[in-house]
């Protein structure tokens, strides 16, 4: 299936980037607290592995819960907006405002409400992930082909049947696009949330704050790459879900057999 993608190209480019990194550092004598070498970062990652893995798990937990809550909540909210034009027109501006409100402003407020800890982290991630899911899914629910709607009227389907048998399956690719976007920013949400609402549980964002305070720069970088890896895991899970649901029928997955 992946025959045409040259798997070795990213590796070659990765090596080039690494070489440039090390080369520049040596050539200009850049000191470690400005830009540590890859070897330093790897060593830091190994010595700090327990803290990092623990932090990753803590943040992933918060981010996952927030993401799942946003997926479920966003889906239900879309159903409400898909069912009624009035709800859509009435609610959409506020959902938009929610999205426009910068998280860095929202986050401290949420910490005031809930105190630092998991609930606050979940809520902050939820707020970040909610909008792309709602926006995409609603778009899908209302983009159904006019003739298909007529077909359902002709067979005397009620609104619930139309929703279940037509609009929801039709909106699935849109919902999954929303999930993909949300999945790629869930870790950003979780890490940002850590910065404001992290507690002694020690999420990855909280660890970053500590390393920053003690000027442990290679460790800081190692934490950054750990968060990056968590983000990849997130996106991979969502892509797998996407494939599972759409593999049988959607053009984005299957090429036409004819």
């Amino acid at each position, binding site marked *: 299936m992946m025959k045409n993608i040259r798997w070795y190209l990213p590796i070659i480019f990765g090596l080039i980037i690494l070489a440039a990194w090390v080369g520049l550092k040596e050539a200009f004598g850049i000191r470690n607290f400005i830009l540590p070498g890859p070897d330093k970062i790897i060593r830091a990652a190994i010595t700090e592995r327990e803290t990092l893995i623990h932090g990753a798990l803590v943040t992933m937990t918060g981010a996952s819960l927030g993401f799942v809550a946003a997926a479920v909540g966003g889906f239900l909210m879309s159903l409400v907006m898909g069912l009624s034009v009035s709800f859509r027109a009435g609610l959409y501006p506020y959902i938009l405002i929610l999205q426009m409100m910068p998280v860095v402003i929202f986050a401290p407020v949420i910490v005031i409400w809930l105190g630092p800890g998991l609930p606050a982290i979940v809520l902050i991630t939820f707020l970040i992930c909610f909008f792309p899911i709602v926006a995409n899914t609603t778009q899908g629910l209302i983009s159904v*082909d006019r*003739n*298909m709607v*007529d*077909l359902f*009227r*002709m*067979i*005397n*389907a*009620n609104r619930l*049947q139309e929703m279940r*048998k*037509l609009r929801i*399956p039709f909106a*699935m690719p849109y919902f999954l696009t929303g999930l993909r976007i949300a999945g790629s920013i869930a870790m950003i949400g979780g890490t940002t949330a850590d910065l404001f609402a992290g507690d002694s549980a020690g999420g990855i964002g909280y660890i970053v704050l500590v390393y920053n305070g003690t000027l442990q720069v290679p460790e800081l970088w190692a934490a950054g790459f750990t968060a990056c890896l968590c983000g990849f895991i997130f996106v991979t899970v969502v892509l797998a879900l996407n494939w599972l649901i759409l593999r*049988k*029928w*959607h*053009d984005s997955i*299957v090429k*036409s*057999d*004819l």
Partner: protein
Amino acid sequence: MVSPSPPVPLVRISGLSKRYGRGTVILEDINLEVTPGEFVSLIGPSGCGKSTLLKLIASLSPVSSGTLLVDGMAPEHARQETAFIFQEATLLPWRTVNQNIQLPLEVLPMTQAKREAVCNRMRKLVGLDHVPDHYPRQLSGGMKMRVSIARALTVAPKILLLDEPFGALDEMTRDRMNEELLAVRSELKFTAFFVTHSVAEAAFLSTRIVILSANPGRVYRDVPVPFPYPRTVETRESPEFQRFTTEISRSLRAVIPVGA
């Protein structure tokens, strides 16, 4: 054939007009009576409201004024009697052939076994016995339209409304679909309203051709088609058929506005 009393019309249209909102009048003063078993083709220039007339009969759109009775009822109460076949096959891409065909039965109180039995019968009837579990993307245009027809027939409609169903198909496929539609009709005995742009198609299929003029749509001519069923390739190739289609084309040219 001698019948003791004139047949009761299945569809009765009198003084019917249609306009969308306060917009232009689409159909004006349409009068038409169609008896059971008739196959009526509606033909005319674009904008003559032939598709709109189908939508009125299907109750997908309300009548503005005049009378329209389907099997003696207002169209919105007669939806059980009608089935609609759209220009595009309008299949649900996430459903297989079988699942698509069964869709109209799923909203009826019917057991799974009964649904499958009806579905299998209709699938065979349209010649799709070999692809029950294919998805629409795996089918050609003609096959998709067959699924669409099978789906419409599951509810055993008294009236089949077809809105240019074969317009997107190549000529060979279209001719074959025409022959098969007649074969299905001789078995299931539905009454049909068929919108088309093709004079030959209308002449081959119909018992009657209604030519509409445009702006607003009116009945210009109502012509019985003289050829007996079953109709075959020979019908299509006969000189009588050629003469008939030439005459219909001439009428059609008269109602197509200059410069269109």
